[in-house]
């Protein structure tokens, strides 16, 4: 069941000057939150932000009802979120969207590009619980864009690519040598810029691997009411906020 809650900021942890973790405390016990779910945060009293902003739920802690988000500053709304301080109120609608499916057996490959790293901590926890081995591959332009690696290392092997070669293999994610062993993996998950997801989708498709991607999109409501956030699927236009954000590439009409 979806909720609208007035949450309290517990802390903001800056990862670098453009990225931070926002930790909120919900006023009552957390509902069931699945890997891939997101929340819509209301950014109050900001002249340039009219609608809510969607963010993937990075982590939850049921013992103290906290929820964490990984946030990258890209405009007025995310900038304003970064100015919050402990004790400030943030109104949140959550949990929203569908979630990743968990395969019967592994191993799985998780690929994150740029700031497309948020959905995978909850997913990794779930996969770990099911005893499924995970390989991570994260790509960015430079090593400064490679974040949360230490957290991910707790769940499996982590490969890195950077376009400038400042960390891991030089290049883009799809060029990474892990794809030489693609046959090993039973399933691929991807999140990041659309061209990257399409490229991963392409590889998965040609190797006949099941592949789920988490899409971003301009959302007005986030809970299925406005029909603004559609993506073309083989069964017609679907709402990314409700039928997604996670889609199996076989259901999309991507030319891959």
């Amino acid at each position: 069941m979806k909720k609208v809650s007035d949450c309290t900021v517990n802390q903001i942890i800056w990862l670098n000057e453009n990225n931070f973790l926002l930790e909120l405390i919900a006023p009552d016990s957390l509902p069931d939150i699945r890997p891939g779910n997101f929340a819509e945060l209301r950014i109050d009293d900001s002249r340039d932000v009219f609608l809510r902003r969607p963010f993937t739920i990075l982590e939850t802690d049921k013992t103290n009802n906290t929820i964490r988000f990984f946030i990258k500053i890209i405009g007025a709304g995310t900038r304003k979120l970064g100015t919050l301080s402990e004790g400030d109120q943030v109104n949140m609608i959550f949990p929203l969207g569908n979630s990743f499916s968990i395969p019967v057996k592994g191993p799985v490959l998780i690929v994150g590009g740029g700031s497309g790293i948020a959905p995978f901590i909850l997913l990794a926890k779930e996969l770990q619980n099911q005893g499924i081995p995970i390989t991570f591959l994260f790509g960015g332009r430079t090593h400064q864009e490679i974040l949360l690696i230490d957290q991910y290392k707790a769940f499996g092997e982590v490969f890195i690519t950077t376009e400038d070669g400042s960390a891991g293999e030089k290049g883009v994610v799809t060029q990474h040598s892990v794809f030489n062993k693609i046959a090993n993996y039973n399933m691929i998950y991807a999140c990041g810029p659309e061209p990257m997801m399409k490229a991963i989708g392409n590889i998965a498709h040609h190797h006949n691997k099941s592949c789920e991607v988490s899409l971003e999109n301009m959302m007005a409501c986030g809970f299925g009411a406005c029909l603004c956030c559609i993506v073309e699927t083989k069964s017609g236009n679907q709402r990314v906020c409700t039928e997604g954000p996670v889609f199996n590439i076989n259901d999309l009409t991507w030319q891959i």
Partner: protein
Amino acid sequence: MADLSVKIGDLQLKNPVMTASGTFGFGEEFADFIDLNRLAGIVVKGLTPKLREGNPYPRMAETASGMLNTVGLQNRGVDYFINHIYPRIKDLDTHIIVNVNGSTVEEYIEVTKKINKLANVPAMELNISCPNVKEGGMAFGVSCPSAMAVTKAVREVYDRTLIVKLSPNVTAIDDIAIAVEEAGADAVSLVNTFLGMAIDAEKQKPILSTITGGLSGPAIKPIALRMVWQVSQAVEIPVIGMGGIMDATDAIEFILAGASAIQVGTANFIDPQVSVKIIEGIDEYLEQHDIDSIAELVGALNID
């Protein structure tokens, strides 16, 4: 507790607050957030004779105190509604009102006839600002003769409360209101969205897939309020006001300007509980101002 009930044609509303078409899905999307039975009515997403996929993505752009949308009437068609959605929502203790669309008069009539048979749909809202229609791309809602023609045709096949939803993209919205009143409308609702546009200066491209789209939200409230005022001076039938209503104070302003009831649109996206908060806020206002019935407030603006 003051008397919040109002009448629109034969339609008895328990309070003046409905939700606007296209901003409230089929109500079900809000069931987790509010008790839908508190609402006077739910105007469901616009229906057409057949399934429509709507316009391509991107469909939304945020603007100063507002948003543009170009959903393009995506819906599964009236039959799907009747067979799959209506059964799920028909027993709610709120009025289900269907927003009827078509690209030709015939299409409007087709949807209307089907809706006319639904026991628990006591009213329809005839949406005459759909952009893809016969008359050379000119919408039905922007000329008096075409607005009159479609209203008349629909009136002939519809037995219940007929609300006609007006486009604000006109020189004289009062003239259009008079035309649809003459054609047999039981009420008018206004405003639909304003045709607007957003540009990404960096990419040097329009933000919306269809270049232009419909502007809604508080940005348009001053114009919507003026139009409600203007139309309520011009016609005898009840006026349903909307356009940028975010809270009870906004709703009271529309009622003072002449609206017998109001619809909440874009605000539902920002606060899915806002419609119920508005009902409560109106009740408080009446109590604070010692007004027994909301009816006393309709058009009560004091202009000296």
